[in-house]
């Protein structure tokens, strides 16, 4: 009896992996076909000029986002309905994912904001600003309800969670540094106009569009398959927007709770969260002497400036290589290579550049300026990562007092999975059913 379902499940999972890879293979075939070189007699079809996208959608999208956030907050905080949250998850995949093709996306909007701050000539669109600010405002009020069911990237990962394994906490903490690095790099890249890496390497948007670069589709497939066993790997160990949401969620006025009223310390919810976001009550007494804890704290506080300065220095050193991602720097390097004789053929970019008559010195000067910007940005990235690392280490050295099982406000996605593990919640639902004479909300 046990063997057959497992076999079936394995076949099905293998099929899921294969399909993800296949979509990627198909996507590479969508290249342009060159125009025929016929002479005379052939009437080329009239070039169609499609109308620009209606600006109404920007307002509709923003309104839908706001509504989705508020509904999700209601489902999480008032109704405590996992079924409702799942329904919202499916809606977000359908609307923000497949219908709107994953764009605008709050995760990527961080880059637009960074560029708008650093480049006065860039006007940030209304919808992008809305997509950046609304989830943050909601996080400040209700916790990460955006992650719960509104973010299409999170939603896709949420629906594929099948048999999640608990990632050891130490490993989760270590991997949790990656989003900080990614955020720093993304902000600097975007602010300098190099590229929007969060969008370029978005692993799921290609699924929504049923098209995309092969590498990205394979990356997305890997995240999906990994997500069956490790809950929301992208959200936890890569998402740069999640860093900011986490900060604000820690300060949120209201936040999802495991129990609707009081924790009875039954420990049934201890392993309920597939994302490892439940904090256990602290022990009243620890084996570690107080003096040792204090010494460690002082040491870490002293090390914090060193971490910031060291990170900044290292980041600044890495800034120049990072600047190679900027197209202007690439152009200058290619021009330089051509002038040095390292290559014997121009690229399309250098050919076009030379045809403008702009002196190459101007391209070199531009590249050097961008390199300097990246060095400055490298300081920012490094110092930011150093500060984050130091703050986390200090966090471990601080003695905290916690009496109940509580969601970790920074990392909890408010998905509501833990609700049903709590006996008090079950009691509440029974009470609701008895009172209203109808079925419980979930």
């Amino acid at each position: 009896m046990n063997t057959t379902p497992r076999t079936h499940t394995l076949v099905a999972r293998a099929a899921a992996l294969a399909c993800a890879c296949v979509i990627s293979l198909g996507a590479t075939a969508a290249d342009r076909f060159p125009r025929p070189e016929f002479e005379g007699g052939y009437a080329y079809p009239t070039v169609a000029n499609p109308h620009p996208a209606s600006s109404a959608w920007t307002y509709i999208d923003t309104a839908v986002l706001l509504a989705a956030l508020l509904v999700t907050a209601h489902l999480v905080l008032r109704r405590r309905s996992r079924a409702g949250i799942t329904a919202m998850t499916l809606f977000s995949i359908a609307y923000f994912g497949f219908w709107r093709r994953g764009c605008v996306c709050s995760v990527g909007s961080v880059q637009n904001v960074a560029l708008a701050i650093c480049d006065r000539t860039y006007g940030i669109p209304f919808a992008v600003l809305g997509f950046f600010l609304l989830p943050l405002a909601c996080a400040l009020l209700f916790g990460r309800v955006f992650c719960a069911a509104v973010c299409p990237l999170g939603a896709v990962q949420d629906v594929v969670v099948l048999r999640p394994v608990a990632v050891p906490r130490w490993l989760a903490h270590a991997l949790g540094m990656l989003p900080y690095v990614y955020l720093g790099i993304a902000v600097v890249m975007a602010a300098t106009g190099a590229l929007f890496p969060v969008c370029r390497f978005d692993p799921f948007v290609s699924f929504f569009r049923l098209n995309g670069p092969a590498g990205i589709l394979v990356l997305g497939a890997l995240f999906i398959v990994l997500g069956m066993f490790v809950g929301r790997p992208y959200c936890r160990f890569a998402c740069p927007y999640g860093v900011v949401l986490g900060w604000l969620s820690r300060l949120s006025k209201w936040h999802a709770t495991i129990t609707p009223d009081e924790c009875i310390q039954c420990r049934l919810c201890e392993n309920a969260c597939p994302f490892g976001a439940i904090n256990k009550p602290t022990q009243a007494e620890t084996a570690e002497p107080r003096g040792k804890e204090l010494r460690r704290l002082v040491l870490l506080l002293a090390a914090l400036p060193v971490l910031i300065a060291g990170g900044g220095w290292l980041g600044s050193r890495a800034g120049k290589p990072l600047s190679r991602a900027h197209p202007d720097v690439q152009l200058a390097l290619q021009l330089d290579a051509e002038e040095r004789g390292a290559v014997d053929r121009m690229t399309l970019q250098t050919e076009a550049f030379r045809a403008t008559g702009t002196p190459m010195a101007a391209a070199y000067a531009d590249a050097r300026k961008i390199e300097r910007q990246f060095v400055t940005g490298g300081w920012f990235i490094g110092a930011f990562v150093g500060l984050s690392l130091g703050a986390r280490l200090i966090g471990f050295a601080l003695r905290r007092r916690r009496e109940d099982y509580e969601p970790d406000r920074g990392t909890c996605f408010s998905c509501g999975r833990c609700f049903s593990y709590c006996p008090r919640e079950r009691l509440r639902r029974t009470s609701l059913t008895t009172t209203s004479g109808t079925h419980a909300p979930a």
Partner: protein
Amino acid sequence: MPQPEQNNKALYIRIAQGVALVAGLFVLVVSALIVFNHLQLKRTDPANSPALKRLMTEFRAQPDRPAIREEIRALDLLARRALFSSHAVVRSGAFMLLGGVIVLLCALQALAALQRTAPMPPKCEGPDEALEMNARSRWALAGACVVIAAAAAYVLVLSHAELGPLGAAGEGMRTLAPATAAAESAPASAAGAAPAAPLAQSVPPAPPPPVEEVRSNWPGFRGPFGLGVAGAADPPITWDGASGSGVLWKAVAPRKAYNSPIVWGDHVYFSGGDEKGLEVFCLDASTGNLLWQRAVQPSTTPDKLQDVSDDTGYAASTMATDGRRVFAIFATGDLACFTPDGTQVWTRCFGVPALSYGYASSLLAYQDRVIVQFDTGDGARLYALAAADGTQLWETRRDVSPSWSSPVVINTGARDEIIVSADPLLAAYSPADGSELWKLDCMGGEVAPSPAYDSGIVYAANEACGLKAVRASDGTLAWESSDNIPDVSSPVAAKGMVIFASSGAVISCLDARDGTELWTHEVDNGFYASPVVAGDRVYAFDNTGVAHIFTLDRTYTEIGTPALGEAVVTTPAIAGGRIYVRGDRHVYCIGVE
């Protein structure tokens, strides 16, 4: 005996398993078909079919064979059908795959839900376990720190090994094939790429001239450092262009232009340009004989420049020289460098300036470099190029509108500053590295007059914004004036006075201390040429060619008004006791035998 509920659950599980299995198999089959399609498409590659290519080659060789053309069309149609039907298959397959995946996921989720067991409290952890977890987390974070640092170091080492300094090889040194070129394609120069700038001579020039040598010549627009003040000189005060009295020589200026002559030693340089070409001329200062003339190959032909007006022309910018090299720039954005004997050393193209009227800023030779003010609609920049080989020493971007004024160099006692005027900034830059020393938001309009300087105060003027007196030490405004301000001609400052001549035919003199008007003098014709100071005299040529010569004094005292007999809109050069002035068609040397 099993309960009915348990039987139902087992049934649901079996159904979910069955659906998952079927969906999984469906997904696998669709995947296999798409993979097969993709591989086949890659193998056949209809867009680059060898048969089609062969036919195309044949057709190129024999274009008069319609049978080949028809065959190409038929084959091309076939190839297109194959390609697009393949794309359609992939797209349909992607939708089917998506549907299969959705069913598969639903079945798997249902299966997981059905097989889920009631939660049980896990094993209790002891008091040390939390401590141990914290310790492990700390070490893990430290490990993450090391990994991130190692990754950064790896990127650093890797990039250092690959990349060298940009631009070390110079510019335009090689001829490359264009990216789009097939084997038979032309090289880059023939494909319309930017013109190369060959280094015709690699002999380094002599060291830059000392200040005294600069002052004894007239090395650029408005003389030494661009300030309109001649070195020790006693130029003539009487001449008559019509009769030739007082005129040592008169030479034809072959191409019409509005740049002013410059003088270094025995050489007089000026440039000219029209729709047919751009040229640089060198005359013998003693005789007026043409020593050499050189054509400058433009990056774009002048007749393609749409915005150049007739009263600006293709060579409005005055040349510059340091005595070792001679520099000329034109409306096409091409800068050419020659030796005094006419050998072209290097050229640089700054791109066609996006300017209404045309480019008119003059060059400034300063020590071992040449300064280029390039304030255009595509962005404003100040460049310093090495006089020896044209290498760009620095470039400073400026947040200003297009301008037609020229840079000047001042010495404040503490340092040298390059002063540049444009809308809206009057700004000072370090000649060494181009860094901004100070700036003042005080200018406006289409700025053409260049700044003047004397005794710590910079004077910048434009009709639209008035004349501004700005302290060179910190860029603060000392005073301003608004009457009779020129729109083309530049002011000159000396001995506590600021003098300027306007298009409205008024010469004005202000007190440099506070801007008080000392005197004004109305004449019959307006001024485009800038007044220049020589000793205790001021020379101002009006647009008809009449020179208004007056004492540099706090009251107006006229010395003379000799006429050249030819329209003059250029600024005279004064060197060696002579005046070199360019009229509408000729260059004159005025002096005493």
